[in-house]
C-alpha cells in the first residue's frame, strides 16, 4: 500500500503533538499507510506514542536533529550532513527539506500538511521543489475514483464548495485542523531517521520569541471582540461571557444598555457614542444591533450573533446567527472551546491516561 505522509505540528514550547497531527493521520488512513513526519528536534517517547495511537506506521525524523530518541532502528547511522563540514550545522534541514527528501525516497500517494502559517510556507516551497500540484485549506479529503485524494475546499468567502485533485506530481495538500476528528487506531510505529541535506537557500532567522502577554487585549486593537447586551440578563451571566472572551483571547465589550446596567465599564461601550471597533471577529451576545450600536462595529470582518429574537437587526449583519437563549448557549460554548483547545482531544481521550494535556494555554 502506498504511504501517505502527514507533517506533524508540535507545541513549540513543550514538543507535545498537536491535535492537527492526529487529524491528519486519521485522514491519511483513507488513502494508504499513514507515515508521520517530524521536523526539528527529535520527538520524545511520549510524542511517538501519541502518533502511534493515531495510526502512524512509521515516524520519520531528522538524523542530525538534537535530543535523544527512544527506540527504533536508525535507518542511517547518524551521519553528519553531507557536503557541509561536520561542525555544528547552523542551518539544520527544514520541514520542506525533510519532506522533499522523503517524497523522493518513499513515493507517497500524498503529503498532508496542517494549514497553519508555517505549514502554508512549507507546502508552497515543497510544491515548487517537487513540481507538484498543491491544494490549500482543504476542509475534507476523500478517496477519489482512482483511490487518490480528492480535496474539498470552501471558496469565495465560503459560498462555494470546490472539489479538486492534483494531476501532476505528488499531491501536496494543506488541511484545516477541523477537517477530521482524530480517531485512534493504535499501532507501534517504526521510528526512522533520514540524513537530509538542507537546501542552499538563505533563510530568515528567528532572533527572539517574545511571550505574548496572556492578558486580555485592549478593545481598540483587538482581533476578536466578544460583546454582550441586555439579553445577557445578569452580572453572573456576563461573567461567563468574559470567560468565553478569555478562552478566545478576545476583548470584552458591551452595548450602551450593558454599560448602563453596570456589566461593562463605560469605556467598553461600542457604538456611535462609544468605541468603534474593527476586529476580525465580533461575537455579539444578546445584543439587538440598534443603528447606534451597529455604527461602532460594522467594520468587523466576521460577525457571529446569538439572540432570541430572529427579527433583531444584528442578524442581518451576521455571518452566523444563532437563535436561542444566550444564557444557556454561552456556558456550552465555553466548554466546547476549552475542549477543542486541548491537544489531540479526541472523543477517546478519557479512556487513555498516558497523555499530558496542556489545557491552560
Amino acid at each position, binding site marked *: 500500500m502506498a504511504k501517505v505522509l502527514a507533517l506533524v505540528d508540535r507545541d513549540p514550547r513543550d514538543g507535545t503533538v498537536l491535535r492537527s497531527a492526529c487529524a491528519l493521520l486519521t485522514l491519511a488512513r483513507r488513502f494508504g499507510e499513514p507515515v508521520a513526519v517530524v521536523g526539528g528536534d527529535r520527538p520524545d517517547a511520549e510524542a511517538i506514542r501519541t502518533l502511534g495511537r493515531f495510526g502512524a506506521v512509521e515516524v520519520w525524523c531528522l538524523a542530525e536533529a538534537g535530543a535523544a530518541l527512544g527506540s527504533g532502528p536508525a535507518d542511517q547511522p547518524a551521519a553528519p550532513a553531507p557536503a557541509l563540514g561536520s561542525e555544528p550545522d547552523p542551518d539544520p534541514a527544514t520541514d520542506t527539506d525533510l519532506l522533499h527528501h522523503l517524497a523522493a525516497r518513499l513515493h507517497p500517494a500524498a503529503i498532508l500538511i496542517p494549514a497553519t502559517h508555517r505549514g502554508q510556507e512549507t507546502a508552497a516551497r515543497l510544491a515548487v521543489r517537487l513540481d507538484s500540484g498543491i491544494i490549500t485549506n482543504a476542509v475534507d479529503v476523500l478517496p477519489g475514483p482512482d483511490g487518490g485524494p480528492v480535496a474539498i475546499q470552501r471558496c469565495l468567502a465560503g*459560498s462555494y464548495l470546490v472539489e479538486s485533485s492534483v494531476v501532476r506530481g505528488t499531491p501536496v495538500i494543506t488541511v484545516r485542523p477541523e477537517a477530521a476528528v482524530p480517531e485512534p487506531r493504535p499501532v507501534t510505529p517504526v521510528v526512522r531517521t533520514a540524513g537530509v541535506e538542507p537546501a542552499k537557500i538563505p533563510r530568515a532567522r528567528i532572533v527572539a520569541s517574545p511571550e505574548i502577554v496572556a492578558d486580555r487585549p485592549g478593545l481598540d486593537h483587538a482581533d476578536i471582540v466578544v460583546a454582550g447586551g441586555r439579553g445577557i440578563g445578569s452580572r453572573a451571566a456576563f461573567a461567563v461571557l468574559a470567560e468565553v472572551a478569555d478562552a478566545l483571547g478576545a476583548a470584552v465589550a458591551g452595548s450602551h444598555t450593558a454599560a448602563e446596567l453596570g456589566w461593562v465599564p463605560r469605556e467598553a461601550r461600542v457604538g456611535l457614542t462609544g468605541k468603534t471597533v474593527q476586529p476580525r471577529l465580533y461575537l455579539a451576545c444578546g445584543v439587538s444591533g440598534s443603528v447606534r450600536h451597529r455604527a461602532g462595529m460594522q467594520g468587523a470582518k466576521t460577525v457571529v450573533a446569538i439572540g432570541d429574537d430572529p427579527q433583531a437587526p444584528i442578524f442581518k449583519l451576521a*455571518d452566523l446567527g444563532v437563535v*436561542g437563549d444566550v444564557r444557556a448557549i454561552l456556558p456550552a460554548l465555553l466548554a466546547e472551546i476549552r475542549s477543542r483547545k486541548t491537544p489531540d482531544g479526541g472523543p477517546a481521550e478519557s479512556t487513555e491516561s498516558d497523555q499530558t494535556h496542556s489545557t491552560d494555554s
Partner: protein
Amino acid sequence: MKIVVLTKHVPQAMGEVTYADDLTVDRSAVRCRLQDGDEYAVEQALRIAARRLDVQVTALTMGPAGAVAALRSALALGADEGVHVLDDALHGCDAPATSLVLAAACRRLGFDLVLCGTASADGAMSVVPAMLAERLAVPALCQCDRLHTDEDRVHAHRDAGGTAEDLTATMPAVLSVTDRSGEPRYPRFEAIAEARHKLVRTWTLADLGIDTRRVGLTAAATAVHRVTRPAPRTATVPGTDPAEAATRIADFLTERQFL
C-alpha cells in the same frame, strides 16, 4: 534599493462572484479592484521609501487587461512605476504557474525586497509569496505584522499563532504583510491624476522567456471536478438545544481559524 510590490486585481464583492464554464473564477462579470491586502504591502513599501533616499517602488501585477487598474491604484498611492504581465495564455494559471511568471518578472526587474499581501481575496491560498521565494532562492518572511529595513537586512515581527516571533533576513527577500502592519494611506486627489502619467510597462510571456505550455489552464497541476453552492453561510440557526448551538458556533470559529 528596489522594491517590487505584488498587486492583484480581485473582484470587489466576493459574494457576487461565480464560476465560469471552465470552472475558473469568472472575473468578467464583476467589478474588480486592487485587493485590500496588497494595499498594506504598497503602504509598507512607501514607508520604507520615506525613510531612505534610494528607493524605487515597482508595482507588479499579472492578470487580464483590466488588471492594469490595480497598478493605477498602486501608482496613485505612491508607487513609482508599474509592470503588467498580460498574455492570453495565462488564463487559468494555478499557483505554481503564477509564481513562475511573477518570479521571472521580479528577476527581470531586479529587487531587494518583494512585498506581497498575505492572501488573495479570491483564491486565498497564501502560497504565492513562499513559492516566489523558493523560485528566487531567497528567504520568505510570511505574515509579518511589522517590518523595517536597515542597510542590507530586513527585520520583521509576526504572530505565529499564539507565539510572537522577531525575524531577520538578509536582502533580497520576499515578505508578506498582514492588515495589522499599518493602515494604507488614502490617495491624494492630485496623486490620482499624476498616476495616469506614470510609466506602466506591459510584458508578455515571450518578454519573460516563458514557454506558454508551462502556464494556463492546460498546464495546471490541479484539476477542479465540481463546484457546488452550499446553503448560504449567512444561515441563521433556529432555536436548537444549547449544546448543539455551541457546537455550531465552535465549528464556525474553527473553520474561520479563530480557534
